[in-house]
């Protein structure tokens, strides 16, 4: 168990010595990670370091060249398609580009998991969809198509779709990329609110540092094809690991430790 992880919590995702190369480029070189249930783990790092590749391994969209990816105790490499579907039925995913079905309306996008995975009637689906859209502040947008929405609205529709079946684990791939400060805050606010409500485990890939630290229980850095951490946000900022230290300095400037310093940091931008 890595430093800072709670010993008594059940780990629902475990990556053991995961290696992955694309042609001659090694993207993951022995990645180890344990994600305890009910927590928020953030994977940070510069662009192109393989953060999304780790996420895709957890989702079973990519298979490692070697190593193990265990979700709910099942090894994703050796499990059958039916088992994989069973595991994924507990997932919610907010993709970097949202991946909304562009030929479907907002309503149909959000209703899709219910229509395909449950046997409930259209009347009940309508109630559930409207409730989720209201939670996301998207009332009256049901008939619009993804192309007619702003970036922030698309993310909110994506989040509504991801949370439609009350998942146990939600994966966020760069949830605030391309959004301005207000829209990013809105997404974080919704994340905070829905996690409190649904109590899901969250795995977030982000480079929105230091803002993302506020929402996280654990932070890990992806650099040089390896994962450094996970550590609590405070421990991460004070870490002596040269790569973490260099990342913290590059992205946050001098290390801050108090709310006042943090607010000063925001003001400088």
């Amino acid at each position, binding site marked *: 168990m890595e430093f800072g992880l709670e010993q008594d919590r059940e780990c629902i995702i475990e990556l053991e010595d995961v290696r992955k190369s694309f042609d001659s480029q090694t993207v993951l070189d022995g990645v180890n990670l344990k994600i305890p249930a009910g927590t928020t783990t953030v994977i940070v790092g510069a662009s192109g370091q393989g953060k999304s590749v780790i996420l895709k391994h957890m989702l079973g969209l990519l298979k490692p060249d070697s190593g193990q990816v265990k979700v709910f105790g099942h090894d994703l490499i050796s499990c059958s398609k039916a088992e994989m579907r069973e595991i994924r039925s507990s997932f919610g995913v907010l993709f970097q580009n949202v991946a*909304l079905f562009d030929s479907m309306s907002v309503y149909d996008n959000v209703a899709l998991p219910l229509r395909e995975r449950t046997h409930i009637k259209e009347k009940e689906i309508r109630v559930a969809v409207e409730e989720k859209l209201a939670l996301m502040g998207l009332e009256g947008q049901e008939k619009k198509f993804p192309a007619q929405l702003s970036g922030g609205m698309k993310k909110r529709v994506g989040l509504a779709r991801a949370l439609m079946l009350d998942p146990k684990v939600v994966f966020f791939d760069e949830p605030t990329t391309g959004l301005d400060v207000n829209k990013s805050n809105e997404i974080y606010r919704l994340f905070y609110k829905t996690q409190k409500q649904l109590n899901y485990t969250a795995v977030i890939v982000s480079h929105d540092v230091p803002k993302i630290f506020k929402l996280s229980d654990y932070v890990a850095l992806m650099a040089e094809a390896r994962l450094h951490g996970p550590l609590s946000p405070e421990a991460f900022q004070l870490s002596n690991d040269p790569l973490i230290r260099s990342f913290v300095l590059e992205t946050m400037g001098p290390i801050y430790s108090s709310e006042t310093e943090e607010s000063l940091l925001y003001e400088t931008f």
Partner: protein
Amino acid sequence: MKSVTKYIARLGAETMYFCAWYGRLGLFLLTSVIAVLKPPYKLQPVIKQIRFIGANSLYVIIFTGLFTGMVLALQGYYTLNKFGSVGFLGAAVSLSLIRELGPVLAALMVIGRAGSAICAEVGIMRNSEQIDALECMAIDPFRYLIAPKLLASLIAMPLLVCIFDVVGILGGYLVGVHLFDVSAGSYFQGMYKNVVWQDLEMGFVKSFVFGLLMVWISSARGFYLHLERDGGFGAQGVSRTTTKAVVMASVSVLVWDYLVSAIML
């Protein structure tokens, strides 16, 4: 010596690529057929696809069928007239259409219209992670995306071929009877006497096979767009793959046309 080794290595790489590609195509078809057969059955997506592949192709099928029948009668009259047997015009037009041209031309038209659209649609879904999103939502993309298209094509293609044949025979009638004064009686009598059940059977089998080929190749190329050797990325990747799908499906139709004819003759 070095260039020989390089050549052998390249040959090996090519062979492996093609084996992998055709293996993937085979598995794609198998998985799609299983997805069609597996309950629960949903009618609405199939009807939607029948409308897209079938009903929306009606105009192009009627137009092509009409002019194919007309040109067959035109050329047929010219040839038969040399032998003094214009009475066989009806039989010549209908047999050519039912056994050969109806299924082939209808399939080529549908490949151009619906096959290209299917490949582009599935390819764009692959490129924009929509298929990944389906998988992550525990929704089987084969059941949700491919199976309705496959089933719809198997239903729509034989119907489209029937319409093509009927309209083509009428086109032949227009030219033969109204332009060249072939008697209407001999046109239809020739057809009635010479067209047998086996001819219809061959046309039906071909339309079924071509319907399968159209959806199989178009959707598989779109589905595996990310595995294209020259990169299936972006708009150009989709357009390149769509072109390849249309060419491959069209050529396959002609190859299988010969094979089915050879088996059933």
